[in-house]
């Protein structure tokens, strides 16, 4: 899909009045910015390692409210025990459990009435999202509320059309409250492109556990921008699992705007065939006494490829920062490829920062050690891969979510260790 394809789609939707009148000027302005910037190419530093050929080769129709039909996906396949589930079909809100606690508000706007999408970083895909988005979901907690049960937002893509979907998710965790939010992307369409923007704000002393699961079919592109702003004494725990899709890219921006804030980012990519998964992070330490960590792992099989590009900025005023970056990758095949680039930019002098990266094949010594104890090679391989990933999944606090993630891992392993 090239610029003129996007232009045609945009013109078509604007003329159909699919978007609210109030948002039209902003959309036109945003879209012209997108046209000015153009689509990223390998010559752009931040897109050097991201293979966008899947997007360039395929054409997508931008989704409209009428696309939110039930489709043929069996939702029960994606159920996570003990969660509130919000189901979004083809980019449009469909249903939610009715038993939400009163301290939690989940509001959706699927037709764009009186609503203008947001854009923060002016990157090409964010500009596209902000000009084309016609669906938003907003999750808000009351101050001091502790929401125990996770909120599971299930984005489903179904049907025969190759759709492009541009949802926006707003998460507002009010002061001294806490919540767990799971975003999950699944599909059974032949091909689709999901371009999501998520904006999370975590107020003073509040805490958000955020899990994101990408389990799309092989003919799927998933690009997302995640913007997190943290206030004093707040905590943000993020975990992403990528085990599906042709192309997946996350751009994560965390702004530590308050003192004593904690931000833990982690992720696991389980890739095979020609899958590509790229994670770009900017953790920005603006205030003192904050703790941040990036802990990402990939297991790559077939001719899959991945990118970890984690950047931590420690600004002049952010003394006593404690920051760690770690990226470890396991290559199961000679054709798999990983680009790992942890970066620290430090402008303060009294800080503790560390980073490290390793990429390698399965440890032959460990395999032999296990085999010498009677364990066959296949099982030894499974034990090693499981050992490699379990540290990350074990850190997930919610037991049901943890079980679900291990189940997904086991399924992946079943297909990739034969």
């Amino acid at each position, binding site marked *: 899909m090239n610029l003129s394809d996007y232009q045609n789609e945009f013109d078509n939707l604007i003329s159909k009045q699919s978007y609210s009148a109030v948002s039209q000027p902003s959309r036109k302005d945003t879209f012209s910015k997108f046209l000015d910037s153009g689509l990223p190419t390998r010559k752009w530093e931040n897109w050097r390692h991201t293979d966008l050929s899947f997007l360039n080769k395929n054409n997508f129709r931008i989704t409209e409210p009428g696309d939110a039909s039930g489709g043929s996906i069996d939702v029960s396949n994606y159920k996570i025990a003990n969660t509130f589930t919000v189901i979004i079909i083809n980019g449009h809100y469909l249903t939610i459990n009715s038993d939400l606690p009163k301290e939690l508000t989940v509001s959706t706007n699927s037709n764009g009435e009186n609503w203008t999408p947001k854009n923060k970083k002016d990157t090409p895909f964010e500009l596209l999202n902000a000009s084309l988005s016609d669906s938003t979901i907003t999750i808000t907690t009351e101050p001091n509320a502790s929401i125990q049960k996770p909120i599971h937002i299930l984005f489903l893509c179904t049907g025969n059309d190759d759709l492009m979907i541009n949802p926006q998710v707003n998460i507002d965790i009010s002061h001294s409250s806490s919540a767990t939010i799971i975003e999950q992307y699944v599909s059974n369409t032949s091909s689709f492109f999901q371009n999501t923007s998520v904006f999370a704000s975590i107020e003073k002393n509040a805490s958000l556990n955020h899990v994101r699961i990408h389990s799309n079919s092989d003919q799927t592109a998933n690009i997302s921008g995640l913007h997190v702003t943290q206030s004093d004494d707040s905590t943000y725990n993020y975990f992403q699992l990528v085990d599906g899709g042709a192309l997946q890219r996350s751009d994560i921006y965390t702004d530590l705007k308050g003192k004593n804030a904690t931000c833990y980012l982690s992720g696991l990519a389980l890739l095979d065939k020609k899958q590509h998964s790229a994670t770009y992070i900017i953790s920005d330490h603006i205030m003192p006494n904050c703790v941040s960590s990036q802990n990402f792992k990939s297991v790559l099989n077939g001719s899959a490829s991945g990118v970890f590009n984690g950047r931590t900025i420690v600004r002049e005023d952010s003394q006593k920062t404690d920051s760690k970056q770690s990226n470890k990758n396991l290559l199961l095949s000679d054709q798999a490829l990983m680009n790992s680039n942890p970066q620290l930019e430090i402008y303060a002098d009294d800080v503790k920062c560390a980073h490290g990266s390793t990429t390698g094949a399965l*440890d*032959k*010594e*460990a395999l*032999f*050690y*296990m*085999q*010498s*104890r*009677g*364990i*066959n*090679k296949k*099982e*030894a391989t499974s*034990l*090693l891969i*499981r*050992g*490699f*990933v*379990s*540290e990350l999944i074990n850190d997930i606090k919610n037991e049901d979510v943890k079980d679900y993630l291990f189940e997904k891992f086991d399924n992946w392993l079943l297909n990739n260790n034969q």
Partner: protein
Amino acid sequence: MLEVKNLHVEVEGKQILNGIDLNVKPGEMHAIMGLNGSGKSTLSNAITGRENYSVTKGDIIYKNESIVEMEPNERALAGIFMSFQYPTVIPGVNNTYFLRAAVNAKRKYNKQKEYDAASFLKFVKSKLKEVEMDSKYLKRAVNEGFSGGEKKRNEMLQLLCLEPELAIMDETDSGLDIDALKIISKGINNYKNKDRSFLVITHYQRLLKYIEPDVVHVLIDGKIIKSGGKELALELEEKGYSWLES
């Protein structure tokens, strides 16, 4: 039990063993002594089937069957065990989980019912006592953060759980303090019986103060140049290896 016949072994194109003959009968303990680089560890790696240790000539017969073509795990299931000189650290793999997988592989091979988590814990706790090992080591990743002595006790624990018929102790005494050495030796002595054989590979005679080999072999440049009773070990202690080198 174990017959090594004219064994020649190459590692990455380099000839290390130049015709080894050994015959270890059930219930016997043989000690292989030699300096660093003499081929001691190559012999144990060849018997256990480590990758890249290729037998270019000769044979290894275990229980009347050649094992040269067998996978390492098949050799282990048949009853061969090696206590590693440098036990491997396996991050992320829980020690109990690993040990249970190994014991269950063996039980499955022997057509016995596999242990579930609870019954295995009971089984392994009785073995822990014998090697005087704290149960906290079961909760860690395999050999992760273990001291030299703890690693060797963990090897001994695996031996006791897997009940091999042929145990190869590769430089078990290296990195051990005297207390740990006594515990490991006691373990070996208690384990040994008329059906179980040991091949003890060592550089020094130190370990042989606590365990008594039936036969001592001296390995130099990939060949056994002298075999004898346990008095040979004492002679080596006194005179060093140089008197044997031509």
